[in-house]
């Protein structure tokens, strides 16, 4: 087995991983960085983000506003000290990207332009047309090329974390092209492996979004926090789940039911006005919008399409010119995939799984409880999203916490004691043996496509927009059974070169673990909060018992143990989460109370 000695190894070269790599490289050029990714960096799913990235810039905006939007948007399940740090760092990170060449959309005077986004009180979403994630990712990737200390392992699959002496000391990776293993030793490990949306059936995520890092950390004893909070995005393409960005609504799009009625006004988001108003109607938070869809469907006011019920995203009034300029990619998607010209016809949409709020438990400095292991980006739970993430906070998170993770890991690696290479190698060899055993066995009868399908449908029915104890229980049971069956999985492809049948099998193992953590955390949270909404007697938020983070601990072959941790509240006490006119009134009252 080949061995590579690095100071810091980063698994994942999406937005978070690349930002971390650059941070390490800039902090000390002498540090050797190994940047591992199972796809070429520019294929990472950050590429798909459309809408934008948050950062306070306007003079009538403030960090306090961004903080409040984030914390109330997260239904108070946020770590408030971390959110404080986050909102203060966002603008600088956005400017940093600008200096690195990100083609942010501009105002006529040459300053960066910002747009409105769901749940944000003031326009603070930086955007690069409707390809923000694409431009951020390519900017970061291309900038990373500048640093000779970053050694990339493109198309290397991380099969396991190497833990020795109670400390993360490296990873075992498979070169996809050859099927050969490499041990990457390192003083510190950063996971930036992205989300896990692919455990659901209809989702906006790329095929690679399979929760690998989450599962690996989890298997090594790091709890997964708040996994029950899975965001449904309200405007996705029926069938494929492809996303129509929130920016469609930021630009002024309407959501209409089958009567052509802007139904959101019936769900406490009104009044309906012709112009978009922040935090109202179509610019309400995603959880509320997805829930409203569900209710409309119950009332029979959605439209039946070939791929299930839909509502209409109406952009016609914006006109072709503006649509082509501000939402060019959306225009193309609608035309090519649906055969719909959005300037002439409303786009059929429905909610689909989009984002995993929870993830690897880390503190505000991205350190997990396992010394030497750091995490950033969607795979982590640093505590800013709470029970529901606001759109455009995630891309900003990649930069802010990618950098933090990089700096912290660099510092840790420098002070780390010498490692015992021989024992690390022995561990890596064990990883290789196990993975090869999976490949070479001939008695497996289960097919991964079948197991994956069953997992995805059970997650959809058990952990949907609204949840019930019995379907959640059924999901937990099914996942338990699927994990048993997975042990009997057989791989048809026995080859070494670019055998992704093999890697997909390993990934499915990761997915099943993560799915189970989600379903079990959901079942145990007996309240409704943010993206976790129940209809079985727990319709209300219950701050007394559940103003708590859930923590899923890995427990071998069995289901996870679910524990709870405290939520850090500094200066925003939990209050009613209100949007639209009601929200404005509540805010005014709060302000008066504060003044009086």
């Amino acid at each position, binding site marked *: 087995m080949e061995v590579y000695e690095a100071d810091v190894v980063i698994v994942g070269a999406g937005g978070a991983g690349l930002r971390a790599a650059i941070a390490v490289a800039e902090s000390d050029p002498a540090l050797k960085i190994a940047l591992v990714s199972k796809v070429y960096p520019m294929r990472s799913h950050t590429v798909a983000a459309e809408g934008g990235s948050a950062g306070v810039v306007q003079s009538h905006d403030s960090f306090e506003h961004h903080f409040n939007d984030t914390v109330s948007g997260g239904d108070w399940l946020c770590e408030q000290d971390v959110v404080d740090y986050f909102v203060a760092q966002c603008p600088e990170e956005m400017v940093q990207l600008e200096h690195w060449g990100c083609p942010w959309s501009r105002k006529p005077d040459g300053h960066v332009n910002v747009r409105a986004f769901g749940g944000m009180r003031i326009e603070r979403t930086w955007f690069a047309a409707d390809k923000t994630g694409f431009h951020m990712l390519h900017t970061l990737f291309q900038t990373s090329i500048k640093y*000779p200390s970053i*050694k*990339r392992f*493109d198309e290397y699959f991380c099969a396991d974390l190497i833990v020795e002496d109670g400390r993360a000391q490296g990873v075992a990776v498979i070169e996809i092209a050859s099927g050969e293993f490499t041990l990457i030793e390192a003083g510190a490990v950063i996971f930036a492996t992205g989300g896990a949306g692919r455990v659901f059936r209809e989702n906006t995520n790329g095929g690679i979004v399979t929760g690998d890092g989450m599962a690996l950390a989890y298997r090594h004893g790091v709890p997964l926090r708040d996994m029950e909070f899975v965001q449904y995005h309200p405007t996705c393409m029926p069938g494929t789940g492809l996303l129509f960005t929130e920016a469609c609504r930021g630009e002024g799009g309407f959501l209409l039911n089958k009567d052509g009625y802007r139904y959101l006004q019936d769900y406490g988001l009104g009044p309906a006005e012709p112009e978009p108003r922040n935090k109202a109607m179509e610019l309400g938070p995603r959880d509320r919008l997805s829930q409203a869809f569900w209710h409309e469907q119950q009332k029979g006011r959605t439209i039946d399409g070939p791929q299930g019920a839909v509502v209409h995203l109406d952009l016609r009034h914006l006109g072709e010119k503006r649509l082509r300029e501000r939402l060019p990619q959306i225009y193309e998607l609608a035309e090519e995939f649906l055969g719909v010209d959005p300037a002439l016809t409303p786009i059929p949409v429905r909610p689909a799984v989009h984002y995993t709020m929870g993830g690897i438990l880390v503190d505000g400095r991205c350190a997990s409880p396992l010394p030497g292991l750091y995490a950033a980006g969607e795979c982590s739970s640093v505590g800013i999203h709470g029970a529901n993430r606001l759109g455009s906070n995630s891309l900003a998170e990649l930069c802010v916490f990618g950098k933090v993770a990089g700096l912290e890991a660099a510092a840790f690696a420098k002070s780390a004691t010498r490692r015992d290479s021989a024992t690390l190698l022995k561990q890596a060899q064990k990883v290789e043996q196990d993975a090869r055993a999976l490949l070479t066995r001939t008695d497996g009868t289960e097919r991964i496509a079948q197991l994956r399908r069953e997992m995805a449908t059970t997650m959809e029915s058990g952990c949907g927009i609204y949840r019930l104890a019995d379907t959640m229980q059924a999901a937990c049971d099914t996942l338990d059974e699927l994990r048993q069956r997975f042990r009997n999985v057989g791989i048809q492809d026995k080859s070494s070169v670019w055998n992704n049948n093999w890697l997909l099998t390993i990934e499915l193992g990761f997915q099943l673990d993560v799915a189970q953590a989600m379903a079990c955390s959901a079942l145990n949270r007996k309240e409704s909060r943010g993206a976790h909404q129940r209809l079985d007697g727990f319709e209300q938020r219950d701050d007394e018992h559940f103003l708590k983070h859930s923590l899923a601990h890995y427990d071998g072959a069995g289901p996870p143990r679910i524990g709870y941790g405290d939520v850090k509240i500094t200066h925003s006490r939990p209050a009613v989460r209100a949007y639209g006119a009601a929200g404005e009134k509540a805010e005014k009252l709060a302000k008066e109370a504060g003044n009086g």
Partner: protein
Amino acid sequence: MGDDAMSRPLKRSNAPIFWGLFGAGGMLAALLGPMLVFITGIAAPLGFILAPDAMSYANMMAFTGHWLGKAFVFAIVPLFLWHAGHRVFHSLHDVGIHAGMVARLVCYGGALLGTLIVAWALLLIGF
């Protein structure tokens, strides 16, 4: 990865000379080519539109005797040859004939030879 790529020495291409001649010839051929062919190859020989003796010895000597006429001829003929030579050279490469030096000699050498002959002829005609 790529360290050796970064340090690989780069050799400057001399293509701009040939590419420039190719471009100039191509532009002239595009602008004037069709009409020139029509005049010298069809209209004059047939006496169609133009007078039957349009290209008489006297006319042509007068034309090429004048420095403007000389300049015109010296622009058209060699540049057409350079344009064609460059293209043919690349086309040989395109169809898999990488004759290297030989092809280079035939294509560009031919154009150069043509240029010299034109110069010689024009000088012979005198002013």
